[in-house]
């Protein structure tokens, strides 16, 4: 589904990703953990080419994406949903408009059909009653659930989540995680950057620990949380748990 090979990324002189190899299989939930600044967001953003990178390849759904081919990248992004830490909802559109924007404008689906799809996903995230609301009228948790519905509206084959609950008040984290849990249960392929270790333990098929631009260790949640082999992973976990 996703195949990243020897990915290297610099921000100017700063070497942020130092050779990442990552495979994500269909219906797999991969959780990426690691200290702030270790390159987790950058990795996610390289996967859908929001960030340019110097070396390495990214293959999605069996196609190696040509970084100079805008058309190919746009096409690829219609299959790769992304959820951001700060939601990035379109403030000038209602909730439903947010969700149907991609389907109508990018996939050129008819308005009527898109509305049907939009309503379906809004129901899925439990926000049917908010379809006419503007984002500014929603709580953080509701905003993030709309953002998830917006990404799902494109009917992607994989979803990337970049710390989807980090900007939320603690009491709102649960509703977003529960939507994500349901999604995982339905077999959605997911790559999730998060500090929610409970979620990682419960939902992840595989946990990846990143440090300083490298994947230091990966394994099942039991392997990573119960007996991490690498010292750096142990240190990180002892700080966070």
């Amino acid at each position, binding site marked *: 589904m996703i195949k990243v090979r020897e990915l290297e990324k610099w921000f100017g002189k700063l070497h942020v990703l130092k050779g990442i190899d990552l495979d994500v299989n269909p219906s797999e939930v991969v959780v990426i953990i690691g200290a702030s600044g270790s390159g987790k967001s950058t990795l996610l953003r390289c996967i*859908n080419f*929001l960030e340019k990178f110097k070396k390495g390849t990214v293959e999605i759904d069996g196609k190696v994406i040509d970084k100079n081919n*805008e058309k190919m990248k*746009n*096409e*690829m*992004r*219609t299959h*790769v*949903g*992304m959820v*951001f830490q*700060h939601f*990035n*909802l*379109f*403030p*000038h*559109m209602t909730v439903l408009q947010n969700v149907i*924007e*991609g389907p109508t*404008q*990018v*996939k050129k689906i008819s308005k009527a059909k898109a509305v049907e799809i939009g309503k379906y996903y809004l129901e899925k995230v439990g926000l049917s009653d908010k379809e006419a609301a*503007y*984002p*500014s*009228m929603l709580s953080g948790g509701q905003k993030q659930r709309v*953002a998830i519905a*917006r*990404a799902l509206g*494109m009917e992607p084959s994989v979803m990337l989540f970049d710390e989807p609950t980090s900007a939320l008040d603690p009491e709102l984290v649960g509703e977003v995680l529960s939507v994500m849990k349901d999604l995982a249960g339905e077999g959605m392929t997911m790559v999730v950057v998060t500090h929610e270790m409970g979620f990682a333990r419960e939902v992840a098929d595989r946990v990846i620990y990143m440090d300083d631009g490298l994947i230091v260790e990966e394994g099942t949640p039991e392997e990573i949380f119960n007996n991490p082999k690498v010292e750096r992973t142990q240190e990180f976990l002892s700080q966070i748990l």
Partner: protein
Amino acid sequence: MDYNVSVLIEYFPYFIPAAWKTIEVTALGILLGMVLGLLTAFSRLSKNPLFNVPARLYIFMIRGTPLLLQLLFLYFGLRSILNLEAITSAVIALGIHNGAYIAEIFRGAIQSIAVGQMEAARSLGMTYRKAMIRIILPQAFKRAIPPLGNQFIIALKDSSLASAITIKELLLKAQQLASSNYYMMEMLTIAAIFYLFYTSIFTWLFHKIEEKLAVSGSR
């Protein structure tokens, strides 16, 4: 000094053609300024030096010199080459002048929209162009409205400089009438009343637009 109020009423009708002239120069100047401003804003934001260098140069030169100089330059300075009519010169000068300021207003508004908006749009598969049109510009326009309103009022007042190139707008009319009837204060008062009337309308109009936009949507 005597101030004759009845003169105000008596001479008021004489100003009406000049009042139209002021509106004509202002409206056409703003229209041209908007077109130039938008084009320049995009050129200025382009990464291609072929676009952004001319845009920078244009903004630099126009903002760095007085409008009066620009007017005189276009009308008298380039007379031997262009031989433009006074009204054409006035509209073009005002348009070019305002274009530079409007470009900066649009650029600022576009840049003030968080990068996350562009990223969210691109992550849905939108092209840069589509994301600009559907996501960034509607938000940017909204943000540009208060400074645009300001700029339009400045343009209105600046249209008085066209008097220097023989355009019979409000200020020149006032001066000309005063030179024959010696009611300088009264003539200037009438012109001032017209300007205040226009600026009030502009202010009111922009207020309405802002209110309307505030209702539809957030921020």
